[in-house]
């Protein structure tokens, strides 16, 4: 237990202040007592003239002594007074226990983490009695397990309960944290690191050389570990359902031949064998095809120290294309458009009203309507009268069309004069977004909701606009906005928890990509020299979105370290000394606290000044008071009161 731990001068100063306050209160308490009497007739000739300042005179010295003694005893208890404490100057140490991902490793079946725990506990027992230790469990983030603790049982329980995490050790942060903890202590001791010395930094942090009180208890092993560094899945262009998996395999050990197997839904779909040199990372592409959604597993068929980084899993979405039903009287207009984009699977219907097919995922209504309301995202092209998009006819020739830059539908489109011919100016509803307008008249509207709908007051395929380059882009943007939930991500990858660098997702505006975790919560993203970066302390699936682009990162792999730290010989603590065996100085605070309370209670019992008791009955000394109190409690008066 820890109290104020005052020095002698601090204790004396505090005691003096307390005594001054008590004496002042003592005089104030006894300064005067207001009493009401029948007459002042007989109160005239008393000793008041002989004692002009009677309040300066101590009237109950025993009471004052009891109060002072009690408060001083309590103050000494708070100051944690110890006998002969100078010869047992206790120190405060910080024990940094490596709980990084590679502490999951096993050597000859024995976990390295258990060896680290045993070494840490041995170190604790080697400390002199009275020393306090702060245990810091460190992987990518150093986390103290409590406060500076003297009780070995508490520290052992905390060490025993430590488990390795998924991230690599950030040695610089761990040691800086330990140094900061010790900087606030008067009796700073050692910073002791217990771990494998594999760290996440590529360069050894400078703090390792700055610390003169750094001691390292190494957990050595013959490292032999092959690991999946990263898996990236990309859909192949112009090959619906085709995927390429780029598997990066690293090796911390001697050169190895590593069989790599890729399976989809527990069925092997690709395999290869890699020759991975020592301390190198080799990447190999593996191709497979699937139109369905499911889990893709990558497995390294090796037996090494860390098993968990030999398997990676990522979920791929369905990629069979989007079924588009086009209701038009002139299907030829759309044929060329859909032939250029294999991800869209069109079906054409010419009847009006147009019935919607069961597998339709996107509906295009070219001047027609449906008999009933549908739940399918719909693109209205020149909607007829009586639909949800009323309008009025207009002739738009060589008019300047303005596109809404805030809408993703008009992304990449620039304002200009277009010959749209016969068109309709649409009347926007309250929640409609105007996509395009001509002289303040809405020409295209987007209506968010379920289902989303877009209405064009013109038909780009029936006007001169069909020769414009922007027409396919307008269709692509509109289709993507309408069926964004069904569009496939441009890339899937499997990585490790920790700091994740996002490359290739910059946009023209410099906006940061949005990163969402499993629960849909936004993860903070920061800008670095290499690109955008976010920190994933826990494994999981993260979605990265930048406009229409989306990537999915499955951070289920343990983070692999990047370098190995070699401390100096002075820092190495290979031999842990035995405990000194000296007895720590005894704590006096319980006895001092009890003494203080007894003194204060005795003062309250013997010199109670709350009532208007008979002054003659007040004892002159504590001993007389004790006798009187005992007599009152157990003597004749008590018997009388109790009817004995």
């Amino acid at each position, binding site marked *: 237990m820890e109290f104020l731990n005052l020095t002698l001068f601090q204790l004396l100063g505090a005691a003096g202040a307390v005594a001054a306050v008590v004496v002042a209160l003592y005089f104030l308490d006894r300064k005067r*007592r207001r009493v009401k009497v*029948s007459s002042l007739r007989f*109160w005239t000739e*008393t000793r008041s003239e002989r004692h002009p300042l009677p309040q300066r005179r101590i009237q109950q010295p025993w009471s004052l002594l009891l109060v002072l003694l009690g408060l001083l005893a309590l103050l000494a208890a708070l100051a944690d007074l110890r006998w002969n404490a100078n010869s047992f100057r206790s120190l405060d140490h910080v024990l940094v226990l490596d709980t990084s991902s590679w502490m999951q490793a096993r050597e000859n079946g024995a976990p390295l983490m258990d060896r680290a725990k045993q070494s840490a506990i041995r170190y604790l027992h080697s400390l002199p009695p009275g020393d306090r230790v702060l245990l810091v469990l460190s992987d990518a983030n150093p986390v103290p397990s409590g406060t500076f603790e003297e009780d070995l049982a508490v520290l052992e329980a905390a060490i025993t309960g430590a488990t390795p995490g998924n991230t690599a050790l950030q040695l610089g942060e761990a040691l800086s944290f330990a140094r900061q903890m010790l900087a606030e202590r008067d009796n700073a001791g050692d910073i002791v690191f217990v771990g494998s010395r594999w760290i996440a930094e590529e360069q050894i942090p400078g703090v390792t050389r700055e610390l003169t009180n750094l001691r390292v208890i190494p957990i050595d092993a013959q490292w032999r570990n092959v690991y999946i560094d990263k898996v990236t899945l990309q859909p192949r262009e112009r090959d619906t359902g085709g995927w390429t998996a780029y598997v990066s395999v690293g090796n911390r050990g001697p050169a190895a031949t590593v069989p790599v197997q890729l399976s989809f839904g527990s069925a092997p779909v690709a395999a290869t064998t890699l020759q991975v040199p020592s301390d190198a990372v080799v990447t190999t592409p593996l191709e497979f095809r699937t139109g369905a959604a499911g889990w893709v597993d990558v497995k390294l068929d090796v037996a090494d120290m860390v098993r968990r980084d030999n398997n990676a899993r990522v979920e791929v979405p369905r990629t069979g294309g989007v079924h588009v039903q086009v209701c038009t009287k002139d299907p030829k207009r759309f044929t060329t458009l859909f032939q250029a984009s294999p991800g869209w699977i069109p079906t054409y219907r010419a009847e009006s009203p147009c019935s919607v097919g069961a597998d339709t995922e996107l509906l295009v209504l070219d001047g027609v309507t449906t008999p009933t309301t549908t739940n399918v995202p719909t693109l209205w092209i020149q909607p007829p009268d009586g639909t949800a998009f009323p309008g009025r006819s207009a002739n738009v020739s060589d008019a300047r069309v303005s596109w809404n830059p805030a809408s993703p539908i008009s992304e990449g489109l620039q304002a200009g004069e277009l010959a749209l011919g016969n068109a309709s100016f649409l009347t926007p509803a309250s929640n409609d977004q105007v996509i395009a307008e001509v002289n303040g008249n809405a020409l295209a509207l987007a209506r968010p909701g379920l289902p989303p709908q877009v209405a064009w007051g013109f038909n780009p395929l029936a006007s001169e606009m069909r020769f414009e380059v922007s027409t396919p882009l307008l269709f692509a943007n509109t289709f993507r906005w309408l069926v964004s939930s069904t569009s496939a991500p441009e890339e899937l990858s499997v990585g490790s928890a920790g700091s994740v660098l996002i490359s290739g997702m910059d946009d023209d505006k410099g906006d940061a990509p949005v990163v969402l975790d499993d629960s849909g919560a936004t993860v903070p993203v920061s800008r670095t020299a290499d690109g955008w970066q976010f920190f994933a302390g826990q494994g999981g699936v993260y979605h990265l979105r930048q406009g229409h682009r989306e990537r999915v990162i499955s951070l289920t792999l343990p983070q692999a370290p990047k370098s190995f730290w070699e401390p100096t010989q002075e820092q190495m603590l290979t031999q842990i000394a035995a405990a000194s065996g000296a007895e720590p100085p005894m704590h006096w605070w319980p006895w001092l606290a009890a003494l203080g309370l007894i003194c204060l209670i005795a003062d309250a019992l013997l010199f109670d000044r709350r009532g208007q008791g008979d002054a003659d009955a007040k004892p002159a000394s504590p001993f007389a008071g004790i006798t009187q109190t005992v007599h009152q409690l157990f003597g004749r008066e008590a018997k009388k009161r109790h009817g004995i």
Partner: protein
Amino acid sequence: MAVSPIIDKKFLERLERLTLRWRKSFAGPIGGHQVARFQGAGQEFLDHRQFSQGDDLRSVNWRAYMRLEKLLLKVFHMEPHIPIRMMVDVSGSMGVGSPSKLEYAKQLASALAYVGVVRLETIQIVPFASTLHEEFVAGGGRHRFAPVVDFLTAMKASGPSNASQVVRHFANRYLQRGLLIVISDFFDEGDVLAEWQRLALLGHELNLIHLSAAEDRNPPWQGLLEIEDAETGETRQMHFDDEARAKYTAEFDAFYKNFERMALRNEGRYVFVDTTTPLEDVLFGALGHMQGAAS
């Protein structure tokens, strides 16, 4: 614990054994119950005297005339109706003590009034502080006792004392001499002894019942005190210790001894009553032993 001014029934029954007596012979209208030393209409034989012209023939001792052939007239003790006045101090100082002296005075006054009412005496209860308050006349038997209790219960202690003015008012208001019972702590500024003595000199028979709370005679406090006069509110700071307490008590004792001497010297009576003393002990003890107001 507050003392109830209502006296219980058993205590009242015991009070019926008592009577109010006085030593002096007062002149007054016929109709009293206690003989005076003056001759007059009465039933108690006093003496014989020679018959003279105009005497009542009903008082002639005809037996003596037949034997001595002289007209001798029987003379009787007069039995005048003497007013009994009971002055109760209601000044602020009577509120001091636990129970307060006024509460004790109410009980004592009600008990004495009951003794008088039962004996068909007429009791005038006169509260006073700085001056005389409205009196209450009780008489006519025990069934008239309840209004006495109501009157006494309504009295409250307040205001300063002024014995000089009280005595002057009393002398002006009550010209007929009689028994005067004063229940007070007699705390006042100035020579109150001489003021009260004036009433004795005017012919009243003084019965002084000196009430004192425990702290009046022996203050329990010690150290630096800020004492406040219960009547005037005046405060005074002084150091009070055992030596001062002894001096205080000695002066207090001298104070009430002077009252006792004054009362006895003027054919009156004096009794010192500590309010911690049970009322029954006072009525059947101190007051009875001194052959005073109640015996």
